[in-house]
């Protein structure tokens, strides 16, 4: 029976916290036996979290001192890891972000694409002022 490991961090969306939170996510994933021989998956999960957190920090709370609450929850199941990012800022649905034209290198627009590329699922929902991005990565050998 699935008895998930859970950790939740209530924080402020601020780029000042990007690196410590990134490293927390990285170290947690690195310690999971399922990812022991899959360093590129560890890199990918860290990158996906980094991009999602950066998006909230940069865009969610514009016009209100650019800072606001963010809640990060990581749930480790027997076959996958789920990362939830919840904010109460401006709705930003990654599904509306166009796939970048890689033949014309741009200076932005790759973040959401990286999330899609490195995670198995990324689902965004918005309800009663609460925005939630759920990113899921299956264990490599599951």
């Amino acid at each position, binding site marked *: 029976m699935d008895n998930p490991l859970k950790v939740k961090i209530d924080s402020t969306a601020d*780029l000042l916290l*990007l690196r410590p939170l*990134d490293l927390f996510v990285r170290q947690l994933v690195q310690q999971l036996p399922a990812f022991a021989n899959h360093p590129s998956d560890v890199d990918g999960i*860290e990158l996906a979290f980094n991009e999602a957190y*950066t998006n909230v920090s940069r865009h969610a709370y514009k016009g209100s001192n650019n800072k606001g609450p963010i809640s990060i929850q990581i749930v480790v199941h027997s076959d996958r890891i789920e990362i939830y990012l919840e904010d109460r800022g401006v709705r930003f649905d990654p599904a509306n972000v166009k796939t970048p034209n*890689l033949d014309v290198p741009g*200076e932005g627009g790759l973040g959401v694409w990286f999330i899609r590329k490195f995670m198995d699922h990324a689902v965004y929902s918005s309800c009663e002022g609460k925005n939630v991005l759920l990113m899921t990565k299956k264990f490599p050998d599951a």
Partner: protein
Amino acid sequence: MEIEKKDGITIISTDERLDAVVAPKLKDTVKKIAEETSTKLIIDLEKTKFIDSSGCGALVASLRTLIKNQGDMKIARPSPQAQTLFQLTRLHRVFEIYEDMDQAIKSFS
């Protein structure tokens, strides 16, 4: 971030992470360096273990700034993580990338 000049070539050595925190600083630094025409610049990624979309964007912006001012930019010693992102985004076709610093320097001669 460290900056040095060697044989007329400016070398910027980026820190352990090239992310949204430092990307604006890299762009500003390159903008200042590029004020001098025909600047030869190497971005040395040897210490950089992690790069994100903001870091990739800053490198693209830096190259554009330099080309606009008749300069040129090469990238040296990217980590496996950076190489993966350059391949995925096809930036390996945009940047001149060298695994060895001497090769990067010689490429300007």
